[in-house]
């Protein structure tokens, strides 16, 4: 059970990052690689502040802030400095590697024997056990406690993002991603909305990094490596499996995508007949299976026979013109 619960907990933490990636990648249509730097930055700063005696919840606020600043820098580079979008992200990410080392002062900072945001819930677990006794109910509540708390937290953040994207500013950001020239013509400053979008996106990534460091009990300079891949995978898996018709649906899909990605990794550990060095291969294969499996369902085949209505109209038109 641990591995299942753990995958949920980690998936939910990563889903915050995935929502951030979704904001940049889908809403702004901006492939933002800052993530590989802002994720460990949130982790580094919150870990450092905790070791300096700051309340772990406040430390998370600073992780959020730090991520936002990272996004701001990428945004400024891209919009005002006219640096290519991909490169702007790469530059910020590269610079952040050294900055994160400076923040931590070392490559690996441990949170051993420090209180984290999870400590109050650990205490709550004890209280639950004392009041309810060692029954099955108290055991299962305790096992799933972090998951429940994280789930509620993630849903609150998701709702906030959904709400934000319906506001005037949010709509401007969405329009910036969809059709920048059109939205510029109605007088919206697209530079401004791009920057806001990137700040928000990386703030979420920084927050996720901060929570992750507290969850795993240490911050490591290498923990950002490949984070953008995890984020993009979560977004794409979620959308492919759960759909993205509305913003609300899309953000929900992204959260599920992140959880599924962690479940896949856990599954990869259990698949028999593979060597440990095949882990990445198995992960990729499992993702391929879950993405392509729906394509082979019977209903889709039927659709293919009927054909695309627009195409058939087009075809009949051609027929008409030829005959005429």
């Amino acid at each position, binding site marked *: 059970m641990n*591995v299942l619960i753990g995958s949920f907990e980690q998936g939910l933490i990563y889903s915050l990052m995935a929502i951030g990636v979704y904001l940049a990648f889908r809403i702004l249509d901006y492939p933002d690689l800052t993530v590989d730097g802002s994720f460990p930055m949130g982790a580094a700063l919150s870990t450092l502040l905790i070791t300096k005696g700051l309340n772990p919840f406040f430390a998370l606020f600073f992780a959020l802030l730090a991520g936002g600043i990272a996004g701001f820098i990428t945004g400024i580079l891209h919009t005002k400095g006219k640096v290519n979008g991909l490169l702007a992200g790469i530059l910020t990410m590269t610079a952040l590697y050294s900055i994160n080392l400076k923040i931590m002062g070392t490559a690996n900072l441990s949170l051993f024997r420090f209180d984290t945001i999870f400590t109050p819930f650990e205490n709550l677990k004890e209280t639950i056990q004392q009041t309810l006794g060692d029954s099955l109910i108290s055991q299962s509540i305790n096992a799933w406690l972090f998951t429940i708390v994280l789930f509620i937290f993630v849903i609150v953040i998701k709702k906030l993002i959904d709400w934000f994207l319906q506001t005037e500013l949010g709509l401007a950001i969405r329009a910036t991603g969809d059709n920048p020239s059109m939205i510029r013509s109605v007088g919206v400053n697209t530079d401004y909305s791009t920057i806001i979008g990137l700040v928000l996106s990386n703030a979420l990534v920084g927050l996720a990094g901060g929570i992750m460091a507290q969850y795993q009990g240490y911050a490591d300079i290498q923990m950002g490596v490949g984070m953008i891949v995890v984020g993009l995978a979560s977004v794409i898996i979620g959308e492919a499996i759960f759909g993205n018709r509305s913003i609300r649906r899309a953000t929900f899909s992204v959260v599920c995508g992140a959880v599924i990605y962690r479940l896949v990794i856990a599954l990869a550990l259990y698949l028999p007949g593979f060597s440990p060095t095949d882990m990445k291969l198995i992960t990729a294969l499992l993702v391929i299976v879950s993405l392509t499996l729906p394509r082979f369902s019977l209903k889709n085949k039927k659709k293919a026979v009927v054909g695309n209505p627009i195409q058939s109209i087009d075809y009949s038109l051609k027929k008409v013109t030829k005959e005429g």
Partner: protein
Amino acid sequence: MKKWIRGTLILALMISILSLVACSTSSTDTKDSKTSTEKQKTIGIVQIVEHPSLDASRQGFIDALKANGYEDGKQIKLDYQNAQGQVQNLTTISQKFVNDKVDLIFAIATPSAQAAAQQTKDIPILITAVTDPVTAGVVKSMDKPGTNVTGTTDMNPVKDQLALVKEVKPSAKKVGIIYNTGEANSEVQIKIAKEVAPELGLNLELIGITNSSEVKQAADALAAKVDAIYVPTDNTVVSALDSVLKVAEQTKIPVVVGEGDSVKKGGLITYGLDYYKLGYQTGEMAVKILKGEAKPQDMPIETQKDMKLIINKKAAKSMGVELSEELLKKADEVIE
């Protein structure tokens, strides 16, 4: 709405498969304990990345267990997992071990040790290739861990190794070091090197890199200004050791390395660690725990018992180093 249902189905399928496999492994364990008098113990091995030194220490650990009557598939069952360089997978792997109720965890390198220690306070954890277990937060002190963690440190005798520079090239004044600024173990070694260099009459020229593709360039930059190069036990630089050696042989600069495997690969000389032996030593500690003779809480973190002076004669020739008879006599191993 169809996509929604399909998605939920996929999610449910994954959860059920996972809970099925996760639960079945623990139930077979209990079955075993009922049928045989001595239960087959499982050992989870978690390694951060594929790497010659880390692989060697794992092999040493397994061989030590075997030599003490714990053979894989017979008395014990080994569950080896490799995070393939992704730190974020370590937590999932550790959770799997806790889930499967393994009897012991062998964690190779610092992040693996930390991830495992975070997941369980009960299952004994043996660590190796962790340079500073106290700072890593997995033990309270080197002499008395006070936690479920014990094992070996790969702290190498930086001072003794740097002193070798003078042995192979008495005129040397400036020593160049390439290290990955992102590795905690390298940082500790650099700190020591900085402290001891003046005593040895040496100046240091440090170059920090962030990945193995930068090593060649760093070596080129160093070759122009130093009399010798020292390669600490830095995972990144060691994995790109060939590019350092190539530059050194072209420019006739001796390369002192941090452990035995690097000498075999073409480094000139080392006094120190052998990861296979370090792993073996850790395996012997594991045996004591498996037999119930000791508890990790009370077992001091061990350093390598017998450090070895290893010299590569071929490398000496190509690096233009004249080895004294005296030095060759002292050597525990000479690679021709």
